[in-house]
């Protein structure tokens, strides 16, 4: 629906309303990102002035085995969690889409872990994963199943942290639900009239229409997963055992605030962003672009 051309005065007052937000974005996001990009090429310890180092930071990182481990861990974490999270969000949204009796309660149940604050969430899982006394291993033992050492064993530590991420799919759940709501009823009526079963409806109607939402969700999730490991790793394992759960954000924090090397910390973050950006581009190409356009 077209609006009549807004009067210049009206337009100006709209921009005034926009001003605080734009100012905030500039000061809180654009300037720091630019500073970060700049710092990555310097040596800065927070006390004396930054010293230009060109590409030296990146060259050091390329030869640093600890950074290689951190980058690998971050990528493995993303590869492990993103597909699962999107699949779980999709599955739950399909299950809880129809407005049946009680569906609201189920939806809330699904969202509860997402709303638990990250510090509390990490401590809770630290207890649940405790190999000797935590309820998870106690439950597994009572069922006669093997009881791994979870956060203490370097092979299961990263998967354990990945598992905790699988419960916090509230945002994705909401996004897919929104996407499902956008599918007009007529489509379902038409497909039923054609005699299509539920599986066929799902494949030929729902999924293609959901595709752009799922793509958006995947991209957002890749970005979130690349950096959401900070609090869990810091509180649950400190990056151990023996670097098994060292991720780039944690390494960046340690490098900047423990070794006072802000420049190298910024370089790490830049590298991670580049890698994540490449992943996103890959996802975008693989999905064949946006496809179905809709007003977002």
């Amino acid at each position: 629906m077209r609006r009549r051309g807004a009067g210049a005065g009206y337009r100006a007052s709209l921009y005034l309303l926009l001003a605080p937000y734009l100012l905030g974005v500039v000061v809180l996001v654009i300037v720091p990102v630019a500073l970060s990009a700049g710092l990555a090429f310097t040596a800065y310890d927070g006390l004396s002035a930054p010293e230009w180092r060109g590409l030296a930071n990146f060259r050091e990182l390329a030869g640093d085995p600890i950074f290689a481990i951190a980058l690998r861990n971050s990528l493995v974490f993303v590869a492990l969690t993103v597909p699962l999270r999107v699949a779980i969000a999709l599955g739950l949204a399909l299950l809880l889409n129809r407005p049946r009796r009680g569906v609201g309660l189920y939806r809330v149940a699904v969202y509860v872990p997402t709303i638990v604050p990250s510090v509390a969430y990490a401590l809770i899982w630290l207890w649940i994963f405790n190999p000797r006394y935590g309820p998870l291993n106690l439950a597994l033992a009572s069922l006669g199943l093997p009881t791994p050492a979870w956060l203490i064993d370097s092979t299961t530590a990263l998967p354990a942290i990945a598992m905790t991420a699988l419960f916090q799919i509230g945002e994705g759940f909401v996004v897919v639900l929104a996407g499902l709501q956008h599918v007009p009823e007529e489509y379902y009526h038409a497909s039923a009239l054609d005699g299509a079963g539920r599986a066929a409806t799902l494949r030929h109607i729902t999924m293609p229409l959901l595709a752009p939402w799922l793509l958006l969700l995947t991209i957002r999730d890749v970005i979130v997963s690349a950096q959401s490991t900070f609090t869990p790793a810091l509180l649950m394992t400190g990056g151990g055992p023996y670097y098994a759960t060292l991720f780039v954000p944690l390494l960046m924090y340690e490098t900047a605030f423990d070794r006072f090397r802000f420049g190298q910390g910024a370089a790490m973050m830049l590298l991670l962003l580049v890698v994540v950006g490449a992943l996103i581009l890959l996802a975008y190409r693989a999905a064949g672009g946006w496809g179905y356009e809709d007003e977002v």
Partner: protein
Amino acid sequence: MTSRSASARWPRVLGFHAAALAVAAVFLVPGLWVVAASLRRPGLAPPTTIEWLPDPVAWSNYARVFEILPLARYLGNSLLVAGLAVPLTILVASWAGFAMAQLPPRARYALLALAVVVRMVPLTAVWLTRFLVLRELGLIDTILALLAPVWMGSSPFFVLIFYWAFRRQPAALFEAARLEGMGALRIWATIAMPLARPAVAAVALLTFVQYWSDFMNPLLYLKSDDRYTLALGLRVLQQLDATNWPLLMAGAVVMMLPVVLLLVVAQRAFWSATGPDRPGTGRRLGAV
């Protein structure tokens, strides 16, 4: 929904509830374990089987957690920050969303793209250099450092929520108001906002949760013990006694209870504003 015979519907309804209950159990049972763990007397040898309710029940753990640390003050600080952040965020985000909804298409799409791009920027990319910016502004160790994100509506997502809400409102209302000579601010205040109550409730809930849970910002920007928020307090609790599980779980419960309760209370508005059952999509509102 296509019509089916009543006899064929029952198994499907049962099937749905079975599946949904299983899902809900998986998501909620760990919470029960945590509450049980928080009520166990510290100092006892830890349990050897899953304990749904310890014996004796040690409510004193909750008192102890408040004794060891000035947790009440931390809680107060968290409440203060989150409480201030909510109205400020609603203000900035709804202004921005309103402006975006009213502007002509080109400006609108540019701002939408900006919002999406900003949303993609991870906190860890700006966290370090924001520290340097805030240091220059002399805001380290102040509540203003924690509240700084309100300037951008706390998150572009909130701006988008308001944008969607305002776009759904009938354009005729705004045209009529403009013809009467009302300015943007008045239209926002008297027409747009009252109609966007679900959006306001959703943003209020999400903002409160965001600031209540915030750990990385206080970790970096706060130094004085009396300014700490609950998130930092829990971390300190862990450092004081890393394997005192009953106390740590009690602390975790103290931190998560308020937001979980808020979710349960405000969920109706939350769903209707963020996506499912959005008014205007032609579907019936979900039963609760």
